[in-house]
């Protein structure tokens, strides 16, 4: 398979089109770029409708996409070795920033996620979404896989210290996703099945034991979290309205800018966390299937790129980014359609707001760079 790929690229080099030559020069991946581009165009259309035809919203998103594209291009041109050496620096800077943010939040007696640098405000937790898998991949790069006990212990610290710092902001959703990115990476690094099973058993056991120590009101909170329908005007309101939006959309939807749930503001967070429901209402099942197909294509292409990487760092980092992206998609779509409890996770690249578009595009830039800088065996 690898040999075929090599043969293909050698023979292809002769017949490269201008576009392909440009992409190769920029170290970008054509198919992934097309997938991302289609998704972003779709996102802009939906955001225009979901924001109540608010052009400034769309323009702000365009600016962020521009920033993201720059980050993508820059990171695509970094060599894996450079990224690997950058990882600890990025990681520890992120940790320091998180501590600062937590401290400000503590003294200010309120939730604090932003760091105001005067001109730019940014969320250090966004850096961590990339820095944690980078640090973990860099740590495992020289070590034999699957990782031994000592390595695992170090990895636990690498992953859960920043995740914990984000969770205490408090931003449970992002913290869990950061931890998820790290855990996925460790799984791809070949964590033994028996350890996976053991961890799951401990988690389930801990939950059962912990349940008995909870007060009634705490149990109630957990139950409401698991079954929002039991609280239709409180936490259940979002999910009930979003299911009405999706369900009433039917096969072909009510048409762009014609979703009553979204346009009449019954659907909360319609341009951010619940934009998936707007798509379902206005474009129907067809629109959602197209959306999911686009995501599947992007994930598949990203995993393919990861599989082509020649060194451990590249491979693990690329796979972690690809699967984390999928986890985002699944959690958001599952939440909005009522499969998964409500957690504040945006639909990647489609939801409006925050710096997540920039981070995600930067991540794909890393992925493309890792692929285009791979050492071709035998060349």
């Amino acid at each position, binding site marked *: 398979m690898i040999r075929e790929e090599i043969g293909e690229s050698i023979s292809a080099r002769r017949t490269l089109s201008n576009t392909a030559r440009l992409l190769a020069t920029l170290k970008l991946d054509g198919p992934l770029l097309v997938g991302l581009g289609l998704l972003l165009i779709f996102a802009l259309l939906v955001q225009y409708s979901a924001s109540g035809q608010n052009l400034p919203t769309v323009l702000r998103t365009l600016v962020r996409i521009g920033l993201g594209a720059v980050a993508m291009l820059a990171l695509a041109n970094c060599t894996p070795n450079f990224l690997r050496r950058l990882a600890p620096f990025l990681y520890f800077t992120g940790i320091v920033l998180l501590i600062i943010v937590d401290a400000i939040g503590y003294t200010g007696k309120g939730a604090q996620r932003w760091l105001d640098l005067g001109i730019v405000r940014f969320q250090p937790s966004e850096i961590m979404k990339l820095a944690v898998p980078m640090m973990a991949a860099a740590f495992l790069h020289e070590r034999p896989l699957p990782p031994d006990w000592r390595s695992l212990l170090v990895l636990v610290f690498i992953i859960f210290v920043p995740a914990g710092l984000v969770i205490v902001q408090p931003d449970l959703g992002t913290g869990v996703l950061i931890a998820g990115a790290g855990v996925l990476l460790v799984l791809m690094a070949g964590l033994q099945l028996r350890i996976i099973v053991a961890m799951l058993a401990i988690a389930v056991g801990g939950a059962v034991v912990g349940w008995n120590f909870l007060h009634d009101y705490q149990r109630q909170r957990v139950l409401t979290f698991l079954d929002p329908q039991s609280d239709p005007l409180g936490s259940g309101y979002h999910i009930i309205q979003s299911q009405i939006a999706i*369900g009433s959309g039917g096969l072909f939807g009510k048409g762009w*800018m014609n979703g009553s749930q979204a346009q009449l503001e*019954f659907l909360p967070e319609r341009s951010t966390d619940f934009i998936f429901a707007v798509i379902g209402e206005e474009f129907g099942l067809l629109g959602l299937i197209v959306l999911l197909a686009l995501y599947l294509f992007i994930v598949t292409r990203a995993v393919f790129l990861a*599989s082509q990487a020649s060194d451990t760092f590249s491979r693990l980092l690329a796979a972690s980014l690809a699967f984390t992206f999928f986890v985002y998609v699944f959690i958001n779509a599952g939440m909005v359609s009522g499969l998964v409890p409500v957690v504040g996770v945006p639909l990647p690249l489609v939801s409006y707001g925050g710096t997540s578009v920039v981070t995600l595009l930067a991540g794909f830039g890393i992925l493309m760079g890792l692929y285009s800088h791979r050492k071709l065996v035998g060349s």
Partner: protein
Amino acid sequence: MAGRVRIKDLWGEQRMFLTRSFAAMTIVIALMLLLAGRLFYLQVVQHDYYVELSQGNRVRRDPIPASRGLILDRHGTVLVENEPTYQLELIREQTPDLDGTLHRLSAIGLLANEDIDQVKRSILSRRSFDSVPIRLRLSDDEIGSFAVHRHEFQGVDLRTRQTRHYPFGELGVHAFGYVAAISEEDLKKIDRASYAGTTLIGKLGVESAYEQQLRGRNGYREILVNAQGRSVERQGAYAPQLGSEAPVAGEDLVLSIDLAAQQAAEQGLGDRRGAVVALDPANGDVIALASRPGFDPSLFGRGLTRPEYAALTDNIDLPLFNRALRGTYPSGSTIKPAIALAGLTFNVVSAEQREFCAGVFHLPNSRLAFREGRTGKHGYMDARQAIARSCDVYFYDLAARLGVERIAAFLAPFGLGEVTGIDIGGEKPGLLPTPAWKKKAFKRPQDQVWFPGETVNFGVGQGYLLVTPLQLAQMTAVMANRGHSYKPRLVAAVRHADGKVAAVPTVESARITGVSEQNWQVVMEGMIGATTYGTAAAIGKSATYSFAGKTGTAQVFTVSRSETLTDKVAERLKDHSWFIAFAPAENPRIAVCVLVENGGFGAAVAAPIARRVIDAYLLNEKNNRPPAAHKPAVRVPT
């Protein structure tokens, strides 16, 4: 791979990575399929269900209240109508300076200074786009002064609202009823949806009994609303089709009431406590139904303050009490024509048979004396004279000979002891006493026995017998119509919103059979005698029609043998004054019953009122109409 020194196995790592990637991609695809399945379930299987939910979300039905039906008298005079009143309403989000606006409204006299705080609170408690009423029932002057300054008050506007208007005020309030705010109790009984957009409901009388017809059917307008409940024309590119339905106005009710007769009844009663009921014997039409004192029905429509309500309920004269339907009194001598008829029918006495009245009656083997009322000794009396002069002794004797069972059985079909079934609510059945009733009504065995003396009293309408003015009017109508009896009704016809008038059919109730024409005639002649030479002779004078009547005096306070009646008896202990009459005697078109509480002797107080009502009705050209076909021809006594 358990060697002490592990070295990186690059090819092994890559193989393992590919395996894991493959496994992970399998999971990814499985989860994608799970999502797609969930979406299929929501968007295809459950589609209709969610479409309905989303409809309910965005479309609100705004009720358009139907206008309440009018109430007219038999000649089409409006008795109850709707009147637009103006109120001042304010929409907060359209008002740039709320405090300033309220103070400027107060400056031009549209808002009391001390009300500003409360009005402001009520505005702030509502949503910013709601139109909040800040002043109700503006006078014409106030409307004028607002109109001049309107441009200064952004967000404030005049709105009209329909309110119930009673042009004749207190007149007929116990018959017509009134409307008042829907109470908690009402809410349990009514279909809330059909009252959306209305705050009032009919209470008492016709307003309550014919609530269904008067109310009409509310219309609605569908309104597009957003999640905050704000009504929007369209939202973005989204502008759906919205439906509406026009309201159907309530039906107008044409009453059988004759305004002139009703006015005569109420003016006749004046400040006295009492009731007048006038019926058309031919069909049960209620020509007048009055109970005094009354009250202003519009008080309830606008909302009564606590002291105002207390003033009504604590009033010793009980203005809220409908005496015509709910007041039960001993009938007094008004029962005598019916007793005489019973005596003639059961052949206990013949019309010409003369009895001697010495002013006192003794039961056989008893020393207990039953005395004449105020008329003293009558001498020899036949049936006609006994009725005309209201001879107690004659009827003491007749009752004793008839026995209570026969009297009660004979009186029951006249409608005594049970409700007449008039088409408004609240009626009381009164009491037609029998030995069986007494046995049940009393606890102590010695009280359960029916004494012969009680039968004697029954003959002159004293004792346990209790009747309402409506029942006595009904009895009079039955007498006038010689045994034909119709259910009394206030509503004679219903006029639908499309202008079609539907007459309400008359309902014939129990009919008295077995009484001969001659006997009816004897009793009627006795009653004509009462208004020509008898107890009410003064009343019959100068009447242009023949006129059959009977006085009655119901004892409130039993006077012992040794005492005589004096005017010193406290006002509230004075006898109730009754008068029943029908006219013209040969072709009765109106039967009247008048009760004046503590009025004293019937002929003095009640009879003139009856005369006024009959005059108002019979002498009114508009009421001349051919007699109903089924009426028997009646010979006029000479």
